[in-house]
């Protein structure tokens, strides 16, 4: 187990370096300049621009910049400086991250609980009306783009019914976060439902289920213990990779509902070509994503004793 985790952590290193380097290259190799952006349309004097570029290390070759950035990040936990505000990126992250974490966690709970419940309901009745209805609804949910769904919910629940506020002012208030969380969770919810449904329907025909029923176990135990434990593995895999997707998907949702989280900050830094902020934020997202995947692999062994990590 310990050796397996160590090996997986080692395998993460090239992926981590590759991902950050790719982002770095995309941000700096493509046209545009954050320092010029500071001066707006007027443009600054060449000396001042050169001075600022030197101060932020932008006059060095890209690979040297990347090397310095990674060195500072790993040795000192220093993610650089946000050029527009002059604040350290870690400060900006500290403000934005808890907001997105709350939103993402709420969305995750919604997709986890509702998705698995709907999936089990459909899977146990595979081929019947309930099953087909649930499958059709999930197809529809997958087809509605996030921002369209956001607009629809806003018009119906905020403007027409006045049940929920249209924008989020206080991100610690669950009532205000509910609508954005539902919007963020919808597509994933549909995928979780479909995965659970397929898995349940497939395992329902397995021999061990027939044995369990033949032993005279109550249905609750057959479904809750025997069936669930074996059917949840693909679902857990999906949920693990989805944690990263939820954080990324927050770009649209946070914009729609005016939430000041990671997504909003990322969108701003892309438009302003704020390389350091962007690389810092995406790095964190990538770390979250990689760790979630590792966690999922370790969970396999808990769910399925046949899987052992030497």
């Amino acid at each position, binding site marked *: 187990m310990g050796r397996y985790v160590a090996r997986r952590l080692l395998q993460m290193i*090239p*992926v981590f370096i*590759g*991902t950050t380097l*790719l*982002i770095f290259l*995309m*941000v700096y190799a*493509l*046209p*545009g300049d954050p320092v010029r952006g500071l001066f707006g349309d007027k443009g600054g004097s060449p000396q001042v621009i050169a001075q600022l570029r030197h101060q932020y290390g932008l006059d060095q070759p890209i690979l040297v910049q990347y090397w310095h950035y990674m060195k500072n990040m790993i040795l000192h936990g220093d993610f650089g400086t946000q050029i527009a505000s002059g604040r350290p990126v870690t400060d900006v992250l500290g403000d934005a991250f808890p907001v997105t974490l709350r939103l993402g966690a709420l969305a995750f709970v919604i997709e986890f609980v509702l998705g698995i419940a709907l999936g089990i309901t459909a899977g146990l009745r595979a081929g019947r009306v309930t099953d087909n209805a649930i499958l059709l609804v999930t*197809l*529809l949910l*997958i*087809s*509605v*783009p*996030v*921002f*369209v769904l956001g*607009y*629809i919910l*806003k*018009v119906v629940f905020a*403007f027409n019914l006045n049940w929920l506020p249209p924008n989020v002012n206080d991100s610690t208030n669950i009532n205000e976060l509910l609508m954005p969380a539902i919007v963020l969770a919808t597509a994933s919810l549909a995928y979780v439902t479909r995965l659970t449904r*397929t898995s349940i329907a*497939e395992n329902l025909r397995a021999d061990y289920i027939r044995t369990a029923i033949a032993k005279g176990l109550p249905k609750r135990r057959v479904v809750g213990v025997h069936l669930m434990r074996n059917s949840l593995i693909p679902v857990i895999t999906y949920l693990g990779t989805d944690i*990263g*997707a939820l*954080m*990324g*998907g927050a*770009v*649209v949702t946070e*914009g729609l509902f005016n939430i000041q989280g990671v997504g909003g900050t*990322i*969108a701003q830094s*892309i*438009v302003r*070509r704020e390389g350091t902020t*962007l690389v810092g934020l*995406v790095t964190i*997202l*990538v770390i979250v*994503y*990689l760790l979630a995947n590792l966690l999922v692999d370790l969970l396999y062994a808990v769910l399925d004793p046949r899987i052992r990590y030497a």
Partner: protein
Amino acid sequence: MPDVTKTDIKNAVASGPQAALQLPEPKPEKSRSLWGDAWGDLRRSWIFIVSSVLIVILLLITFFPGWFTGVDPTSGDLAKHFLQKPRLGNIGSPDWLGYDQQGRSVFARVIYGTRASIAVGFGTTIAVTVVGGLVGMIAGYFGGIVDSVLSRLTDVFFGIPFLLGTMVVLNSFQDRTTWVVIGALSFFGWTQIARVMRGAVITTKQADYVHAAQALGASTPRIMFRHILPNTLAPVIVVATISLGIYISAEATLSYLGLGLNGVSWGNDISDGGNQIRVAQWIMLYPSIMLIITVLAFIMLGEAVRNALDPKMR
């Protein structure tokens, strides 16, 4: 009952020799290929029929928008104020779905916006399938160090959130043509197909007929494309069809974020209409409905193909 049996026997006796001759007829059904079998399934699936009809209509709109409306989607007439409600009775006329802020016909814009979505969807899917398929094929077939390098490369691209990556790329282009958007979506989209392809190739290359081909001295490309490829296509086709819908949705999302195509597109119209959401919902409502129908059509098609190709689902 006895009567029925009697007549049956009579008929059988009467048509004796012919019946015997016709016996082998149903036989070929058993030896139908995976594709023939799948096609038989598809023809009987209502999901497939509905989605194909929708897609044919969408393709007609894409290639011949003039058949559906005679109005130019870019010509605005400010006298046609956007607060004038849609006339839902006038099916097909310019004021059917109302006018937008600049007095342009929403109906004409919905019709002409189809081309952008369909072009991006098909273009990206083709690019992604070719690139991802090649990477997956090479990684799966050669294994070893080649596989390790390509798989890590896939992980790197997969690790960057799809939408964020495309946003960063598109932000550096002022002139975002269809090709630029297709390029940006494909740059991050190929990983899924590569993974599916790699998995399928690894299972297929252990088959006896592949060993036989190798023993006969067939060249590597020939084994890859003549022997392995046909047997790995099924899962790739399923993933590609479903992702076609997802790419159309992604293009609209990028347009909503202000980083999509320049020109007439549903995403741009929905984004513009979002600002008028409290006074003139129709500006965003009708492009949204078209967008949802289009994405749904392709996802349903993928679903039907998956059901037909995957025997586990039966």
